[in-house]
């Protein structure tokens, strides 16, 4: 009896990627055409504000099971202490590679703080988020991408993880990258300079990572189609990161 009620790995207990696939399957009937984002323990799920299941941002896992089916509790992080300071201004300092914050307390006394953004931490958190992407989904997305771009560009993508395309409208060059923001450049005979990294995720993303809720090549397809079909909306919807910031992924 006791053994029967024990949850079984692969049947009752699934991985993040399996959950992603099963949720997508289960919710098709409810017209969730894009599937459902899967929250990841320890990562902040940021969803498009008007998204139907926006409340998933608040979901927190309370337990997980290891590969032997043994249950482990996940402790709630303590709520952040209320600070007497509030941020009144902030900017990125490219020379020192830090964000400088100006904060004020209730008496109006100003201080400054330094905020370090760690590229390695970004990379490690992105690896954590990658657990939600089913490998089959990535393969399917790659098949789709192959149908959208020239064969040589797709080969380049498979070999290096990125490929360039020049916009017919603006003449800008875009460097589409798997799992990283798209780089926009101005390249012609007279000038050659980079503009910024464009970060955009369909439905949502995991905070302080480069990972979206969809597999990386799906995001490349979204960037490519938006650039080709609605370039101004691509720029309007994407976050524009300076290239020297960790979020740019260079």
């Amino acid at each position: 009896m006791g053994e029967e009620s024990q949850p079984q790995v692969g049947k009752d207990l699934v991985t993040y990627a399996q959950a992603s696939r099963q949720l997508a399957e289960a919710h098709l009937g409810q017209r969730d055409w894009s599937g459902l984002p899967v929250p990841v323990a320890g990562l902040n799920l940021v969803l498009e504000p008007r998204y139907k299941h926006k409340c998933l941002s608040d979901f927190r896992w309370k337990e997980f099971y290891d590969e032997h089916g043994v249950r482990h509790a996940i402790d709630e992080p303590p709520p952040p202490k209320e600070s007497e300071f509030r941020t009144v201004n902030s900017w990125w300092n490219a020379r020192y590679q830090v964000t400088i914050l100006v904060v004020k307390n209730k008496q109006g006394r100003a201080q400054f703080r330094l905020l370090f953004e760690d590229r390695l931490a970004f990379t490690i958190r992105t690896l954590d988020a990658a657990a939600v992407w089913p490998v089959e989904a990535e393969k399917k997305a790659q098949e789709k991408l192959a149908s959208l771009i020239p064969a040589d560009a797709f080969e380049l993508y498979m070999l290096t993880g990125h490929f360039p395309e020049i916009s017919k409208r603006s003449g800008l060059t875009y460097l589409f990258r798997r799992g990283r923001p798209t780089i926009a450049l101005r390249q012609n005979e007279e000038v050659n300079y980079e503009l910024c990294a464009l970060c955009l995720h369909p439905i949502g993303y995991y905070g302080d990572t480069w990972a979206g809720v969809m597999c990386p090549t799906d995001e490349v397809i979204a960037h490519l189609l938006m650039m080709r079909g609605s370039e101004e909306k691509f720029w309007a919807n994407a976050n524009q990161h300076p290239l020297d910031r960790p979020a740019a992924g260079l």
Partner: protein
Amino acid sequence: MKPHRQNQDNTMENNERPLPGIDVLNTGYGDFELRFDPNKPDEVQKAKETITDMLKRGYAIFVRQGAETFRVRKFDVDKNVYIIGSTPAEEVPIAEARATAVGRSAGG
């Protein structure tokens, strides 16, 4: 409109050309294919409802016309065409298009 799984035959009975429809970027499937047979009124009706629902929910739908990609601005339910511009020439019949839909996007 019926979901089309990988390795499933996606051609019409005469096998002349692939069925039209929409590929939706999807968290679990990567690219989820919804196909319909333009000769079957019930499937066309479901396709119309799906397209209308997607646009209402803020999905960006893209179609190719020649070598160009366009974002669908509206959908004409009576004429069964995607509207990609402001002139009658800028209409793409749903029965001739394989569109791609992308859910609402958030900057990261």
